[in-house]
């Protein structure tokens, strides 16, 4: 199975390893990520204004590229996923945005939300299947107690993201079980880490991250995983020191016994 793949800015720069882990794991699990040619940055945040068109076009381009290839579009970074999924929803359901965006794009055939957008985790859950994943794990992360940190962007707004129960999600916990570790459920896993606010309001973000980490360690977690590079940055930066934060693809590669391979590259 071949998917169009939108890696996003951070995973192509600061966090290249995380992208490599994702690709090499995908290969091992029997699917291929074909990077979209000439993709542009999604913008990091979804433009909420109903009259914002230009800022949505990068997503539309990626979506249309996948459509033309007849592929589904896979994202890895939570922020990219959030933006692209919501823009796609607009293109499907909001007449005004669809019309105006298509006017800008002047495509041969208008884009009307045909592409299916999947997060990497959704591919693991719905296509590969966590049971299958479990079978392929060669290096189970036994004994590790992992807190899943979801953040905001994957889950909300629940109706559009349709990713998991926005108030009581379980996909990352299922993932953690599949790679042989023990999930720790704690209530702050879907609270905000501060996001972009950490640039100018360091204190705010610090407070938020502290709450998350206290809650997770309180329930017995000895590490966190996340699907968002920015969350990972914020949590790491504001870490009291004893709760490491990993990107989920790194643990995935480790469980599949592929981590060293990437490091060697």
């Amino acid at each position, binding site marked *: 199975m071949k998917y169009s793949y939108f890696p996003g800015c951070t995973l192509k720069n600061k966090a290249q390893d995380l992208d490599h882990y994702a690709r090499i794991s995908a290969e091992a699990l029997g699917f291929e990520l074909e990077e979209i040619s000439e993709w542009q940055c999604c913008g990091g945040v979804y433009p909420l204004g109903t009259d914002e068109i230009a800022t949505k076009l990068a997503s539309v381009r990626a979506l249309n590229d996948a459509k033309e290839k007849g592929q589904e579009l896979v994202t890895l970074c939570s922020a990219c996923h959030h933006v692209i999924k919501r823009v796609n929803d607009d293109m499907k359901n909001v007449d005004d945005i669809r019309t105006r965006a298509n006017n800008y794009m002047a495509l041969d055939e208008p884009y009307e939300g045909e592409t299916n957008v999947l997060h990497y985790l959704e591919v693991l859950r719905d296509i590969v299947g966590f049971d299958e994943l479990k079978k392929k794990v060669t290096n189970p992360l036994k004994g590790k107690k992992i807190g899943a940190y979801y953040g905001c962007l994957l889950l909300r707004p629940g109706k559009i993201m349709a990713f998991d129960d926005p108030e009581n999600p379980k996909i990352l916990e299922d993932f953690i079980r599949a790679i042989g570790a023990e999930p720790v459920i704690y209530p702050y896993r879907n609270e905000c880490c501060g996001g*972009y*606010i950490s640039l100018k309001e360091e204190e705010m973000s610090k407070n938020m991250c502290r709450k998350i980490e206290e809650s997770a360690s309180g329930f017995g977690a000895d590490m966190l995983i996340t699907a968002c590079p920015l969350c990972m940055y914020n949590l790491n930066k504001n870490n009291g020191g004893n709760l490491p934060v990993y990107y989920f693809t790194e643990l995935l590669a480790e469980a599949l016994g592929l981590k060293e391979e990437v490091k060697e590259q």
Partner: protein
Amino acid sequence: MKTEKNRAELIKEISGVNPLKCMKCGKCSASCPSYNEMDIKPHQFVSYVINEDIESLVNSKSLWKCLSCFACVERCPRDVKPGKLIDAARQIVVRERDNTYLSPDEVPELLDPETPQQLLVSAFRRYRR
């Protein structure tokens, strides 16, 4: 003309929100992780728009404290979603004025070696036109 009425209408248009649907339950303020940092609280945004006091809104601290975490959007029982109103007010500021909340000059000192691109990109989107 930039009357308060026009600006209130503009906020409603950009956000797509009908503030009259609000029943003042306060679930937004109860959910907001930035609540304590805000001078105008999330549930109050609605009445500022209804009362057409946009000037106070655009000068509020709250504008720059909203995280766009969508907790209020997810939980609002009345389909009002104050987070969208806040963003629309922010749009009015960054579209109307030159003085945006983040200038490129101040960026270097905010950076550290680990800063992900995503952080800059997102902040620029929210703080500038």
